[in-house]
């Protein structure tokens, strides 16, 4: 087994950072997390995606030892989340979904105290503070107290703070909430850098673009149950189902629409609400439908402005899965 240096200690690199088996959390007999089983591989960014109230944060709270599971088991970095919780907490970092900071201290003071809490030596703290202030665009606000910062700056402080100490595994619970696109990109890139230097990341979000940008594998959770778990491409392939054909013609739309509606293999048609929008044809076998559409256009002598197949985005797949309910499939 490969060995990695983590801080001053040496630990064996394991295949899975997180392993859960039938992990369940009930509140008042209602399962918030319902028999969830999955693994997170060492060195990957594992996305845990789901709508609000899906069970993402409760799962994180169990894995970070804040909550005890009702039933089921889980291990984090090889340690049991119930019986070896203190060993886990020394090795992980957590950015909570809720805002969290020291109200009385400046940005710099917050970073320094957090590093001190994690027993980071003074010289290392100073260096890290400078690096993080720079990376997260907080240099000008270093002497400012959190209540005087914008929501986005406070969030950046909270995320930056967690990088004051080394973690083998980081739990990032919707870390980009409240950030503008540029700050979001900087944050995600910094997380990627950390992953390349050996940190594993457990990342929750309901912004699918973020997941596509940063995650190696994802699990989609809804109502406490995992609906899918795989790479993003595989999930799109398995669960995407319907592709969309975008079509815009210069004139003769009325006649075309009538012909399209009679076409075999079409799931549904979405008519444009504005002049610049294309007509959208949803079909399972988009290639076959596209060739039939081309036949119609050719025979009608229409002038085509746009005709292309758009593969379903993760957003499309996500919405489709959440709306279809129940149909669960685990890797």
């Amino acid at each position, binding site marked *: 087994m490969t060995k990695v240096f983590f801080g001053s200690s040496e630990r064996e690199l394991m295949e899975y950072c997180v392993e859960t088996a039938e992990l369940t959390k009930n509140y008042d007999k209602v399962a918030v997390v319902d028999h969830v089983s999955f693994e997170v591989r060492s060195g990957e960014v594992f996305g845990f995606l789901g709508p609000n109230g899906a069970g993402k944060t409760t799962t994180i709270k169990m894995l970070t030892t804040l909550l005890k599971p009702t039933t089921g088991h889980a291990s984090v970095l090889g340690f049991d989340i119930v019986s070896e919780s203190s060993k886990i907490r020394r090795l992980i970092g*957590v950015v909570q979904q809720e805002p969290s900071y020291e109200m009385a*201290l400046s940005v710099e003071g917050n970073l320094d105290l957090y590093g001190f809490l994690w027993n980071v030596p003074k010289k290392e703290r100073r260096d890290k503070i400078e690096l993080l202030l720079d990376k997260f665009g907080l240099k000008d606000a270093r002497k400012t107290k959190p209540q005087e910062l914008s929501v986005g700056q406070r969030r950046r402080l909270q995320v930056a703070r967690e990088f004051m100490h080394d973690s083998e595994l980081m739990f990032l619970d919707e870390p980009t909430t409240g950030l503008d696109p540029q700050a979001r990109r900087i944050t995600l890139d910094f997380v990627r850098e950390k992953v390349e230097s050996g940190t594993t990341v457990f990342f929750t979000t309901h912004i699918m673009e973020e997941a596509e940008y940063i995650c190696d594998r994802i699990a989609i959770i809804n109502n406490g149950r995992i609906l899918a778990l795989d790479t993003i491409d595989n999930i799109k392939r398995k669960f995407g189902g319907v592709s969309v054909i975008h079509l815009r013609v210069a004139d003769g739309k009325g006649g075309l629409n009538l012909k399209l509606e009679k076409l075999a293999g079409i799931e549904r048609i979405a008519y444009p609400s504005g002049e610049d929008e294309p007509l959208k044809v949803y079909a399972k076998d988009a290639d076959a439908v596209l060739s039939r559409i081309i036949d119609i256009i050719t025979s009608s002598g229409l002038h085509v402005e746009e005709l292309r197949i758009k593969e379903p985005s993760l957003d499309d797949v996500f919405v489709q899965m959440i709306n279809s309910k129940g149909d669960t499939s685990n890797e």
Partner: protein
Amino acid sequence: MNSFIRLLYRDLKAGIWSTKSMLVMQLVSPLFYIFVAGFAYTAVIPTSNIGNGKINYELYLAPGIIVMQIMFAASIAGAMLWIDKRLEMFSQILMGPFSRWQYILSKVVSIMLQGMLNAFLVFLIASPLLVGLSVSPLGLVYIVASLILGSLFFGSLTLAISVFIKSNESFNAVLNVMFTPLMFLSSVYYPLTSAPIAIRILSLANPLTYAADMLRAGLLGIYVPLLPLEIIALTVVSLGSFVAATIAFRRVKA
């Protein structure tokens, strides 16, 4: 460095230091008690009989006011928990390399240190009254023990209460309601020897009485007859309240 020491440092830096304006305000009322009420009542109550001796009322009052500072300082312990919960620092810390036990111990010890600092400042304020008094080594033990045990008791008590109360506003209201009888049903303001029997009995069940009598014994060399029992009782209730607070703290959801 030990996890507890790091948490204690955090409490002192981010918690207590942030409430420094509150600390200063807490020193205003003792000033009035000692130099205005103390001198005014001395005209009415020239000397007070306490166990083995008689002293002027302003000298009698000063140790009681110092001990009361510990009680007021302890109210900050509960407030610190509320602030930590509101700003999610409570859960953040419990997801770090710390235990609940270390968290509560750091709160109690930081409150103890703050209570002692407050008491020391009031002691300085009252020092013109205390000129000429000599404190024996045993007296010094009484002084330190009364401050430590008093802080431990009131710090643990307020932390335990904060666990069961759902809002910061309710917490402050409960403390106000609780502190008033504790202050007046004690030996802080008047000697119990001449108090009505009902007040005497209730006051003798009040840990504030024990702490005030211990401090008086240490500072002034004047002992109430029940002092040995009071020392034992204060030790027991202080440790008991700390254990109770630790158990209650397990209920707090992070």
